[in-house]
């Protein structure tokens, strides 16, 4: 009977040795394309880091991140875990036909963020509009199992709106999207809305800003990719959800973008565009909208109405901005996440009679996001 024991030893240790060796070989890898993230570096050894345990902790993370064939293992995990009754992998709920983020309930709207916006509005001559966009798990929360329902995103948004001053015009994106939930308004594998979702909210936003929305039939919709996998896919590598479409809404007879300049906050500007097709070849296809992250993007259009708009946004707005080009002669887009210093260092706010603050629910509890808006 000893024979099978020896074979077990050889099989298990052989397998472990191969995995260990493969992990050792891949230790220098910096980024994971599949997961679209930077991998944990091997920690710098120091006595204090050893003493309080942060060194071994990070070393273990490094090992896990560089584990041989990690992407394959992760994909395998997402595949088998739902079969044994556990549908949450890496904080992502694997549903019948979409992936949903599970960390909804632990996000608390940040009161100091609201104060920042109030301060900004108080020192600003024009009108401030705000739209907080729910994530897919907010709009489709009934597809999550009952015990994951926390404070709904609708409550979070309305709580946030309540703490804003009356002069800020609030746009109820949640209910618009909720009503249209049977349409393709959210990606199946990402937390963000699709271009169509953005268009539906645009119709309301632009009316508040004082324009008539461009009707849907005027657009030519181009499916530039039918193989988009979003951030929820990156966290699970779950293959059985249909890949998403990335769309571009073109309006051939409408106003055209005449100049699009990206500045890095240090005074350097480079030419940019609304769509960066090269990004479709990378693993982060969503960046096709507006291209690489920049602090400030200046868009000029062929319109000559002297209307200027300042947009303060996060990545949710990337597919939203193109719709605005039909109404303004100049749009300046600021990303607080990538901006250096405060807002007034980057743009002259008094140039704009209207400001739109458009961001995703993820940033509602994010102190850092709004901290640079008012000085």
């Amino acid at each position, binding site marked *: 009977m000893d024979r099978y024991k020896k074979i077990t030893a050889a099989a298990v240790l052989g397998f472990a040795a191969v995995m260990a060796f493969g992990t050792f070989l891949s230790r220098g890898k910096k980024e994971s394309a599949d997961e679209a993230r930077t991998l944990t570096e091997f920690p710098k050894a120091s006595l204090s880091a050893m003493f*309080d345990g942060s060194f*071994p902790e990070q070393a273990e993370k490094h090992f896990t991140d560089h584990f041989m064939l990690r992407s394959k293992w992760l994909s395998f995990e997402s595949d088998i875990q739902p079969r044994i009754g556990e549908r949450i992998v890496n904080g992502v709920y694997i549903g019948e036909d979409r992936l949903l983020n599970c960390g909804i309930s632990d996000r608390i709207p940040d009161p100091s963020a609201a104060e920042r916006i109030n301060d900004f509005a108080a020192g600003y001559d024009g009108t401030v509009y705000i739209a907080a966009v729910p994530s897919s798990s907010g709009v489709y929360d009934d597809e999550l199992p009952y015990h994951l329902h926390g404070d709904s995103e609708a409550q979070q948004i309305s709580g946030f709106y309540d703490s804003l001053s009356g002069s800020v015009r609030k746009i109820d994106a949640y209910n618009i999207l909720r009503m249209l939930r049977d349409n393709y308004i959210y990606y199946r594998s990402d937390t963000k809305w699709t271009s169509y979702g953005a268009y539906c909210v645009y119709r309301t936003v632009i009316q508040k800003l004082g324009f008539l929305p461009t009707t849907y039939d005027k657009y030519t919709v181009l499916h530039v990719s039918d193989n988009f996998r979003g951030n929820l896919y990156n966290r699970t590598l779950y293959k059985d959800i249909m890949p998403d479409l990335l769309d571009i809404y073109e309006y051939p007879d409408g106003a055209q973008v005449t100049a699009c300049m990206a500045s890095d906050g240090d005074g350097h500007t480079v030419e940019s565009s609304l769509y960066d097709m090269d990004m479709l070849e990378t693993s982060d296809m969503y960046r096709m909208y507006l291209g690489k992250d920049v602090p400030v993007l200046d868009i000029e259009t062929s319109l000559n109405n002297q209307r200027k708009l300042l947009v303060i946004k996060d990545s949710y707005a990337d597919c939203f901005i193109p719709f605005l080009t039909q109404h303004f002669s100049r749009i300046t887009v600021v990303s607080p996440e990538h901006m250096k210093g405060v807002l007034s260092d980057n743009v002259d706010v008094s140039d704009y009679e209207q400001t739109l603050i458009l961001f995703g629910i993820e940033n509602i509890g994010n102190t850092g996001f709004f901290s640079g808006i008012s000085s």
Partner: protein
Amino acid sequence: MIYSSLLYIYGFLPLALLIFYAVPKKHREAVLLVLSGVFCASFSLYYLIFMAVYVLLNYTMCRITEYLKRKKSIAEVAMASTVILDITVLFSFRAPYMSWFAGMIRAPEGIYAVGISLFTLSAIGTLVDVYKGNEKAEKNIIRYALYIMFFPRLFIGPVMRYSTFRKVMAHPQTGAAQVGKGLAVFVKGLAKKVILADTLFMLYTAVYASDDTKVPAVSAILGIAAYLLGIYFEMSGLADMGAGTSLCFGYRFPECFRYPIFSKRINYYAMRWNTPVVMWFKRYILWPLTISAKSGFARGVVFLFAWALTGFWYTFDLSGVAAGIFLGAAILIENRLRSRNTLRITGVVYTLIISGMSALIFSQESLHGFFREIGSLIGMDGLADSSSLYMLKEYTLLLIAAAFFSSGISKKLAGKVKKLKAAEKLSLVIPAAVLVMLVLCTALMASGGRSDQLFIKL
């Protein structure tokens, strides 16, 4: 580092085996100590220093206690003061109200002395035995250090007397076959933890996580079943992983869990659940006190006290005490009432009910919570709702599998297969099964790289 982590399975363990078997036999215990030191340092350097001091202190005090044996009263002071110190250190890490002491011994924020509940019992037991003259104080400090901090025993033990430990350490059985067996046991434990316990924890949180306090009866039953089975698989999985690792190095320690869940008597259930710990409390608390108890009533009180203490050892709060007293009282009543020839099935059913109840008390933070749970169980919040049905649909298969593997039937079946003529050929399935299990568990740990303790931290 924990056993159920990629770093342990694909890094530490293979490397440890390689080093261990490359070194001549006479140095192997020293190698194991160095490896245990590295294992401790993988939590933090503080923990390693703490362990070194702890070992040195207890080793020295054992020797001193023995040296002073003639002068009983001084020996008593030496023994008692060390026991008190050990208990204070234990409290300072486990009880939040004593954390000021952990601050006093300079523990960095968030550092926990892993396995302190276990090795405190070992250290105190040995001190008492040496004091009583039942045990000789160990002269070999390497071996004593291994007694306290041998890494396969760190998380769950087994707690044992020093003489037992000495016997096991004296005759290691090393070799490829032994490693194979050990790895098979390890993977079995890993599967218990990663496949069963972790998923059962999800069911448990699914029942109790929502803010809504109304839990319909079906959900409540699922929740208790998940808790009882989950805590069993988590602890016995840990015990198997530890035992498997020990086997790889040639040491076979006593078993901790012997299929308690489907016992036919409460007494058996209690004795089969972490046997070494129950035995420790019997040997060092219950028996000495029972001898001094004069009346039957006093013996009953002592019995309940010993169980209360055992329960307290798990949680360090009142829920453990209550669960311990409940279980102890159930055993007392059973010993009085139970005639020998009850049907097996009746025994199993009432044992399940009692053990479920004690698990329920154990899991609650307050008496109020306990009564609310009882209310849920008898249907005060309704029979079932849509989420109960969802959980029933998603988890029934898992619960059946968990119940099957906790019942011991699988072991009996394996025993029968071994007697078959074709057993030799059939046994070749085992390596394949072990490897498949390992691959599955690795995949299930892929995203986080580890599977942490979810139900209980000792």
